[in-house]
């Protein structure tokens, strides 16, 4: 499903990712943990080519993301092609990044209409259904700034779902929220996980990881230190660095 192999990424002399391998099966939830600066966000952004990688590749359902292979070379795709690929990958940002000048309904409907060119009636129906799912049907005509942080992030999740994505990437979706608003966002994410959505989640919510994740990945200094089911990685970490990190956040 999602196949990340040998991904390297540097910013100048700083090597952020140093050969990351990650496989996520269809319908699985993978939670990526790690200290800040470990490369979690960069890894997530490499999956939908928001970050160009220096070496290695990312493939989703066997399709290379951002590149076309000929022989042993990878040619970077044209922007139009990359945008087409991204329109089947959901991304939820830490800072929501809703479009402030569009209503909630317009935010959700924009990409299905313009990126996927689906018929308007179908998109309207889908939008209503998704807003219902995240519990914000009555806010359809509100503007993002009229909503709380938790509500905004739920709209952002509905916006990502509207693409009918093969996988949704969550980049610290609750880190910008007041503590009492974290729960409502996690609840929506839990619901998605239960319904078999393929998800990669970068988060600091260990409780969420334990409850929902099929696989927990611990990333440090650009490398995957260990990965496995939550019971193993969270409760019986084998690696010293994992233990040290968990000791700090738990």
């Amino acid at each position: 499903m999602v196949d990340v192999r040998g991904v390297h990424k540097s910013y100048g002399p700083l090597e952020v990712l140093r050969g990351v391998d990650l496989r996520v099966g269809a319908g699985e939830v993978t939670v990526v943990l790690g200290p800040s600066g470990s490369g979690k966000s960069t890894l997530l952004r490499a999956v939908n080519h928001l970050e160009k990688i220096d070496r290695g590749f990312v493939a989703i359902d066997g399709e290379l993301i951002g590149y076309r292979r000929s022989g042993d070379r990878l040619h970077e795709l044209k922007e139009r092609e990359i945008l087409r690929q991204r329109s089947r990958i959901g991304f939820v940002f830490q800072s929501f990044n809703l479009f402030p000048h569009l209503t909630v309904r317009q935010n959700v409907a924009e990409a299905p209409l313009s990126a996927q060119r689906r018929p308007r009636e179908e998109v309207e129906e889908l939008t209503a259904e998704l807003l219902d799912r995240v519990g914000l049907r009555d806010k359809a005509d509100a503007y993002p700034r009229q909503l709380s942080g938790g509500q905004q992030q739920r709209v952002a999740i509905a916006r990502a779902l509207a693409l009918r994505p093969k996988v949704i990437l969550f980049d610290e979706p609750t880190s910008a929220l007041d503590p009492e608003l974290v729960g409502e966002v996690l609840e929506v994410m839990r619901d998605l996980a239960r319904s078999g959505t393929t998800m990669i989640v970068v988060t600091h919510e260990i409780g969420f990881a334990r409850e929902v994740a099929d696989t927990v990945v611990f990333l440090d200094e650009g490398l995957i230190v260990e990965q496995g089911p939550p019971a193993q990685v969270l409760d019986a970490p084998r690696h010293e660095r994992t233990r040290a990190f968990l000791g700090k956040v738990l």
Partner: protein
Amino acid sequence: MTAPSVPETVTLAGGAAAPLGAADAGSLRVIRARHPWRWAAAGVVLVLLAMALNALVTNPAWDWPTVGRYLFAPSVLRAVVLTVQLTALGIVLGFLLGTVLALMRMSRNPLLASVAWGYVWLFRSVPLILQLLFWYNLAILYRRISFGIPFGPGFFDVGTMDLIGPVTAAALGLALHQAAYAAEIVRAGFLSVGHGQLEAAAALGIPRARQILRIQLPQAMRTIVPTAGNEIIGLVKGTSVVYIMALPELFYQVQVIYNRNGRVIALLLVAAIWYLALTTVMSVAQYYVERRFSRGSARALPPTPLQRARRLLAVRRQARARALADAGTAS
């Protein structure tokens, strides 16, 4: 009254011995602070205003009857129309070209970016009046203009004078000059849109052109409109520079008239009144355009002056109705 268990009297900050009983709380009346100096300042300003008005009206040198005679004279009205035309052409063409320049400047193609920079540099550096004279004299530089393959054969050509008459030359000059400023204004607008917006649009796979038109531009407009409003109002008056091309716009026309009849001040006043009227219309339009683009920027839009007036009337009416009802129950 039952004996309170907690000490009930509190001394106010001023040290005045005003015991504050809990029972009194409901009956305390609020007296607003008085501002005698505000009234004094308002009085002074009113007197000054009255003096200024008096000086305007009573001094016969202003020659108001002549102003009245020429304000709606056909030649003046034609001149106003030309001024409006030049402004509209200058702004529309200027901002269209300016937007193209801004997009070039922000493009990843270094040649496009440098050409846009060079354009802004050149057209901002040469005074408008000089640029206009160049356009006016274009026919001296190039007698004929030919259309065809670059450096190759031409399909047809026309005389420069026929293609670019004085009005076209003036509009072109104003637009090209305006474009340099517009480019920077539009660019500033685009730069003001948060990086996260572009990233979200890119992550959703929204096509590039759509990203610009639907996501970036509407948000950029919030920064663009106030500055653009400045430019438009500036250009309404800026068209007066065109008088050197002997085009009968407002300023040139009033000069023609006062050179004939010697009523200089009165005719300058006519021009001033028209410029005031035009810029007033623009300012009001700007207010509503800004409102349109500020949707979503605040939790609720502030009411327009009209809405405010209506609301005030409604409140008054309710108060009156309540007073009447109270009087009814009292009797």
